[in-house]
């Protein structure tokens, strides 16, 4: 592609609406006669609802209805079991929705939900996650790939290795907690359904609702114009949109259901905990001879979701013997799902920490050790990389960070009560792309409109797609409008898997390139309705590639560990990424640094506990589950090496939404080891853990 718009730091187009409060989110469509719904979560970890007494709730003035498993509208069986809400009396986990109160006002809906009396036949449950549990099994698939990959004879190679590291790392359950809780407003007009929902992909919401309610897709409109974050937890429809549509149908009124914050961890998905055993074998020069990455995680009884943390080990380092394998333990717990860089984020925490341990054993610089193990081809598949600039990211990051001046000895830098240290880790995230449609219209006034049901969840999709269009059309950026976030626009895949911009942009590019051809052959003024071209990238975007396609990066962290309080604070964080051609320098930087901030939280503050007795999470809200706050976050720096990779898409881009969280926690953990000489192998690195270790080892 030629043109001057791609890569430019164009200001985000909806920014002004967002800073003035004019941008409307799903719960903010105040339709006439709108009612509010409030869920009743199951109060037992497993069992059956035997009775729902709604009389006290219905007696409250202003209550319109209480939906129960007995009388809620019937749905077709969903593919995703978490959406089969109020369809039968079974309680698969604590927090499962067992009734829904609908009332004139929020206050009354909440009071009604509290007044509903549910009785249960409680059954024994099992919610205790241990890796030795005999019920754990090997899944066929993990994240759409084989659950297990082996190359060579990993056990024998490891046993024969001259230098060995055998370590186990633990990541607790983590919560997405987007700032906008999951919310939907539903409205029926006869058999026509309109939903305003907070979703990363409105096209899928429409098809799922059509299937559940037995409607034609044409009869459903899904609007997701502004979405207050999702980080995976809004990647597919969640129960809020189904419940809102059921309540609206049942009451004949528009209904909004905004899930209460404390309820989110139980019903919108979480990052499942992982126990990860890493065995690294190397020769004395530091070349890997065996890499074994074995992950145990949990899932619910509702569906199998495997946190595919061993997958990045198939990509990262040259080794003649490789094992990347998963085991999953079904429990009576809430269903896990995608959270930013599922698989890669926890997997690379463990792998990159283990590599740091190997560097320590070998006495090799951790930057050099990684570069020494750069593979010629993707280790698991044998495919050549379409582009791979990990070594360059490491070198450039090391140069900027001042890595050469680092004293490698742990515990060598002291500043009053603080121990200082620096750490490095690599990052990787796969290039994914899905077919999309889009349309481009030329209007007689010389402007253009691009239409696509993309979701702007804060990435700046409107803005970057206008840049793609302007370059393909060869026109200034301000001549292009973009319309996104409505299902009556051309269908498009979700904003997830870091594939939104690549998938949508490809279709926008095709439509605009074709439109440019048509306009070049057109003489005279345009017709009043303009000229419109539609593109569909099916067959192209999903074609198999002979290349292994991944983004890479390097993360550097400096920490100060307070020996008095045990508190770790990050002083500097630098990420250098190689992710194809960066399409908008301003919004890309925000995504990188934002994801690194989430990685900082994963390293230091974010912690959830699955209470084995209660069967759900002990830290369900933002007072107990600590996402990073302003005071936790230093001047994070992110930059990139622009790559020229012809094997991706017309824009030459790789996804950037997730790689920023990958490796951050390992870089911070490695820095804490460098500061203290103590290796922590369980996240997060909270003051209680650090201080206990400092006192016992110091």
């Amino acid at each position, binding site marked *: 592609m030629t043109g001057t718009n791609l890569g430019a730091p164009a200001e985000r187009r909806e920014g002004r609406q967002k*800073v003035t409060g004019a941008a409307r989110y799903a719960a903010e469509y105040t339709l006439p006669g709108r009612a509010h719904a409030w869920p009743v979560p199951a109060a037992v970890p497993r069992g059956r609802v035997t009775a729902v007494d709604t009389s006290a709730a219905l007696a409250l*003035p202003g209550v319109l209805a209480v939906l129960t498993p007995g009388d809620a509208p019937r749905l077709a069986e969903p593919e995703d079991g978490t959406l089969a809400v109020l369809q039968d009396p079974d309680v698969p986990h604590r927090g499962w929705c067992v009734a829904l109160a609908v009332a004139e006002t929020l*206050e009354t809906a909440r009071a009604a939900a509290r007044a509903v009396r549910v009785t249960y036949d409680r059954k024994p449950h099992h919610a205790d996650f241990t890796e030795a549990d005999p019920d754990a099994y090997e899944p066929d698939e993990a994240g759409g790939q084989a659950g297990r990959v082996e190359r060579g004879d990993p056990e024998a190679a490891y046993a024969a290795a001259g230098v060995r590291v055998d370590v186990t790392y633990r990541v607790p359950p983590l919560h997405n907690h987007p700032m906008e809780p999951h919310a939907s407003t539903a409205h029926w007009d006869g058999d026509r359904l309109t939903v305003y929902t907070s979703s990363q992909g409105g096209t899928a919401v429409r098809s799922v609702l059509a299937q559940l309610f037995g409607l034609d897709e044409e009869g459903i409109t899904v609007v997701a114009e502004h979405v207050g974050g999702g980080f995976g937890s809004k990647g597919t429809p969640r129960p809020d949109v189904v419940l809102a549509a059921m309540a609206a149908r049942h009451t004949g009124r528009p209904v909004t259901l905004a899930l209460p*914050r404390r309820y989110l961890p139980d019903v919108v998905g979480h990052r499942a905990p992982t126990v990860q055993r890493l065995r690294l074998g190397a020769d004395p020069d530091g070349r890997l001879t065996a890499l074994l990455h074995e992950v145990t995680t949990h899932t619910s009884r509702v569906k199998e979701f495997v946190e595919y943390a061993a997958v990045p080990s198939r990509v990262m380092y040259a080794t003649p013997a490789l094992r990347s394998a998963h085991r999953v333990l079904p429990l009576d717990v809430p269903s896990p799902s995608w959270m930013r860089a599922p698989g890669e984020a926890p997997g690379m925490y463990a792998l990159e920490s283990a590599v740091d341990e190997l560097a320590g054993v070998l006495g090799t610089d951790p930057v050099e050790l990684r570069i020494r193990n750069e593979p010629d081809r993707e280790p698991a598949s044998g495919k050549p990389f379409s582009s791979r600039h990990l070594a360059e990211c490491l070198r450039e990051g090391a140069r900027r960070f001042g890595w050469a001046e680092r004293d490698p000895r742990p515990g060598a830098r002291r500043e009053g009560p603080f121990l200082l240290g620096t750490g490095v880790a690599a990052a990787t995230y796969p290039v994914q792309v899905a077919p999309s449609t889009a349309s481009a219209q030329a209007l007689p006034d010389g402007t253009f409109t691009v239409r696509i049901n993309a979701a702007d969840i804060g990435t700046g999709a409107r803005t970057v797609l206008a840049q793609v269009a302007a370059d393909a059309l060869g026109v200034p950026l301000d001549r292009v409008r973009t319309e996104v976030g409505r299902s009556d626009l051309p269908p498009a895949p979700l904003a997830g898997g870091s594939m939104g911009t690549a998938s949508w942009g490809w279709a926008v590019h095709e439509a605009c390139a074709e439109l440019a051809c048509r306009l070049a052959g057109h003489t005279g003024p345009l017709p009043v309705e303009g000229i419109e071209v539609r593109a569909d990238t099916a067959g192209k975007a999903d074609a198999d590639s002979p290349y292994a396609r991944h983004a890479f990066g390097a993360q550097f962290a400096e920490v100060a560990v307070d020996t008095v309080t045990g508190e770790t604070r990050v002083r500097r964080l630098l990420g250098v990424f190689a992710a194809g051609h960066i399409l908008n320098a301003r919004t890309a930087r*925000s995504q990188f*640094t934002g994801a690194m901030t989430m990685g900082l939280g994963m390293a230091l503050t974010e912690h959830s506990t699955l209470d084995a007795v209660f069967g759900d999470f002990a830290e369900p*809200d*933002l007072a107990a589950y600590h996402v990073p706050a*302003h005071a936790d976050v230093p001047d994070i720096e992110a930059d990139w090496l622009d790559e020229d990779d012809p094997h991706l898409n017309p824009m030459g881009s790789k996804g950037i939404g997730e790689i920023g969280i990958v490796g951050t926690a390992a870089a911070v953990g490695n820095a804490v080891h460098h500061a203290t000489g103590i290796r922590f192998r369980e996240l997060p690195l909270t003051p209680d853990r650090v201080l206990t270790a400092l006192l016992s080892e110091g």
Partner: protein
Amino acid sequence: MYTESPAVRKVPRAMTSANRPGHHSEVTLRVNGKPHTLLVDHRRVLLDLLREDLDLTGAKKGCDHGQCGACTVLVDGRRLNSCLLLAVTLDGSEVTTVEGLGGHGEEPHPLQRAFLDRDALQCGYCTPGQLCSAVGMLTEAAAGHPSHVTDPATPSGRPVPLDRPEIRERMSGNLCRCGAYPRIVEAVEDVIR
């Protein structure tokens, strides 16, 4: 029930059994300079009054428990979590929301402009709270209110200079899951200078 006063945009509100008198009281607030007299449910918090009764949805509901700051508005010039304020207690108060920060002109508040210049937002859901909080914070610092990181030797009663640690500390009641913090701090610095 809704009583119209001269400068008020009428918001129709049906009289239902849910908002009958008895559990309700009449309250008059000035919101972004306009007076509003409403019969409010005693359970109603300011956040829901703004969003549900006045259709001012700029203030966001992130947690409804005073844990995230997305609902921050200015009440009589002070920044407060509107989800924790019962509306019935606010008779006679002056409320400013993100919609009112820029005054009545077309031009946004300098801080709103700075947020755009710095890309201090992504999903935008915490943004109204960050903006209102920052405006309130600047007033507090100018009035000499110390924070946790203020040097105890700083003379009291004089404006506290806002370096980055001060801004971060004072803004820590406003969570941003997209991680726009460094850009928000830069935007605040832009309007201090």
